[in-house]
């Protein structure tokens, strides 16, 4: 068994430098690597390109990095919940590349799967297709999209083991598995770190081969963005 564990978040982030491209898992605030984001804020690394479906909210998630102006460019599909983001974008301080969500997911997956580019119909005939190769397959137009490259991928799982195997919980899975595949160095933080052999191999979502560093996370806030409930009748 190859042991992937590191002692803490500080060790997990060794090698992160200014100007790097980072992937960060999560959908909204669900399944985001809270510990790694906090440490990126502490490290103060700048000019980052961040690939993440959303940009957090003003005071949580990637919003914390935005507030400290550590992000140069954001690659996302939806950024509607962050006023600071909108301010930086409209003032031109922040470069933003908005891309369709399925294309974002597939560009991560492709990066980890050794597929340099692929055709998708998403965005054909829109701004997203500008400057891209197009091609007709079976009478339908598609655009060529390229795999991402990322220096680090930060993912968050529910359970993990010392071999780097990961299991996600609920919709906190989202982009985490394909980002784990894509990072040159993938850092996984987990709510519960177990010994190799303690997870059922049949239930593992992300095999340890994709994970270079794993650590026991702590103090998860797991903030809910839209608390919606129904009344008991």
């Amino acid at each position: 068994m190859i042991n992937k564990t590191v002692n803490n978040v500080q060790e997990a982030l060794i090698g992160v430098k200014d100007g790097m491209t980072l992937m960060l898992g999560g959908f909204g605030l669900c399944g985001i690597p809270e510990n790694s984001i906090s440490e990126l804020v502490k490290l103060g690394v700048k000019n980052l390109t961040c690939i993440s479906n959303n940009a957090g909210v003003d005071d949580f998630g990637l919003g914390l990095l935005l507030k400290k102006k550590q992000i140069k460019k954001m690659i996302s599909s939806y950024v509607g919940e962050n006023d600071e983001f909108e301010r930086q974008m409209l003032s031109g301080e922040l470069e933003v590349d908005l891309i369709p969500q399925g294309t974002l997911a597939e560009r991560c997956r492709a990066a980890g799967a050794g597929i340099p580019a692929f055709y998708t119909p998403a965005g054909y005939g829109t701004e997203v297709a500008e400057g891209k190769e197009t091609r007709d397959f079976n009478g339908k137009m598609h655009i060529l999209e390229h795999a991402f490259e990322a220096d680090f991928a930060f993912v968050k799982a529910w359970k993990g083991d010392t071999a780097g195997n990961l299991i996600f919980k609920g919709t906190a899975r989202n982009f985490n598995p394909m980002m784990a595949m894509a990072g040159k160095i993938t850092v996984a933080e987990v709510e519960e770190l177990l010994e190799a052999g303690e997870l059922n191999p049949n239930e593992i979502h992300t095999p340890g081969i994709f994970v270079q560093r794993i650590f026991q996370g702590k103090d998860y806030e797991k903030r809910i963005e839209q608390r919606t409930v129904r009344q008991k009748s």
Partner: protein
Amino acid sequence: MALDKIGIAKRIAQELQDGWYVNLGIGIPTLVANYIPKGINVEFQSENGILGMGPFPYEGEEDADLINAGKQTVTLLEGASIFDSALSFAMIRGQHVQLTVLGAMEVAENGDIANWKIPGYMVKGMGGAMDLVSSAENIIVAMMHTNKKGESKILKRCTLPLTGVKCVKKVVTDLAVLEVTNDGFKLIERAPGVSVQQIKNATEGTLIIEGDIPEMVL
């Protein structure tokens, strides 16, 4: 009288067919889930990774690890499944989802839709909308017929940046049900108490009116 958002959702719910997997967008489309016709089984797909999405949880049972695409806390129904974002969009692009319902800022008579950006004013992003509209065979748009100034949102050509081209099949507004045809918007039904003339006045795109137009039955 023009329909409210619930009325639009109720009318769209009549389009559901037994055995369909359905993706509902944020806003009015989400309400459709509350009005599934009796005797019909459908499963809702949420693009952040759920099939078999249930209603909001009871107070105290919210789970931060279980949300819908609008980031709202939800529940799972029996037989539900959870998956990652790549698999979710494989279902969508692979046309395994039978119906997509989404909102729009503008729809054009050729089926073009715009719903993600107002240049210089509002840029929130397309989320999964471009993937959905580029692939779904059956797309219904839920929207108000006019904007707050009373200007038509049912147009000859969209003026805002497009989300997808020639993809919308049907539009349900507060005033009417319209089908997108090769010749323009075909008027299918009127909202209760709304006249054909009112709908004509509120529609900038080509409107095709054939025979008597029935009222919606909600």
